């Protein structure tokens, strides 16, 4: 069974540009979450989507947005990039069953560098 896949693996952008990161969840998983991991810190929750609806949002500015497609894959978009957006962006998928904790399986991440 394929795990969570993310693309691209690495990305270099300049300040002010826009970036789109992609994630494909494990087959059968309906929920996708996005996390930002800055060097030396733990992952920080950005969004969770379940059945194409936003289920949760962390403390990130409106420059960050996401969506989930009918096949449950997801995109994270970041506008007007800042140097501080340089980080490892992790995607996690889970079954998303309401009312219980659903184990989250993480992808390898996309390393974004903003120059």
């Amino acid at each position, binding site marked *: 069974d394929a795990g969570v896949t993310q693309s691209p693996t690495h990305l270099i952008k300049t300040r002010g540009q826009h970036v789109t990161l992609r994630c494909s969840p494990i087959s059968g998983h309906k929920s996708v*979450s996005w996390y930002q991991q800055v060097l030396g810190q733990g992952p920080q929750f950005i969004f969770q989507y379940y059945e194409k609806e936003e289920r949760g949002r962390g403390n990130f500015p409106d420059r960050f947005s996401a969506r989930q497609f009918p096949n449950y894959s997801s995109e994270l978009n970041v506008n007007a990039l800042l140097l501080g957006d340089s980080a490892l962006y992790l995607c996690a998928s889970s079954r998303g069953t309401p*009312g219980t*904790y659903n*184990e989250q399986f*993480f992808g*390898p991440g996309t390393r974004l560098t903003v120059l």
Partner: protein
Amino acid sequence: DQQVKQNSPSLSVQEGRISILNCDYTNSMFDYFLWYKKYPAEGPTFLISISSIKDKNEDGRFTVFLNKSAKHLSLHIVPSQPGDSAVYFCAASAIFSGGGADGLTFGKGTHLIIQP
């Protein structure tokens, strides 16, 4: 404001001995706690979890202890093996009290080094 704290950035333990990793939290809404292990260039891998209604959960060499009154949890690994060398993250969720979203709040991690 850090809601999940891992105060030891690194820990060195001899092979075969017990490794104890500690984690403190401040948010009383957290009701589910997890430990993840991370190798370089890989995403975090789930290790073990505990619900707030329990005080101990064991899985092979790994045991997690939860002290709700102290808002403290710990991960015990015994015996420690060279393959356990990695960064360990403590994470918490307010799944049952937080409206259904199971977004995780992570600590900064502890780099565990197992010495031969």
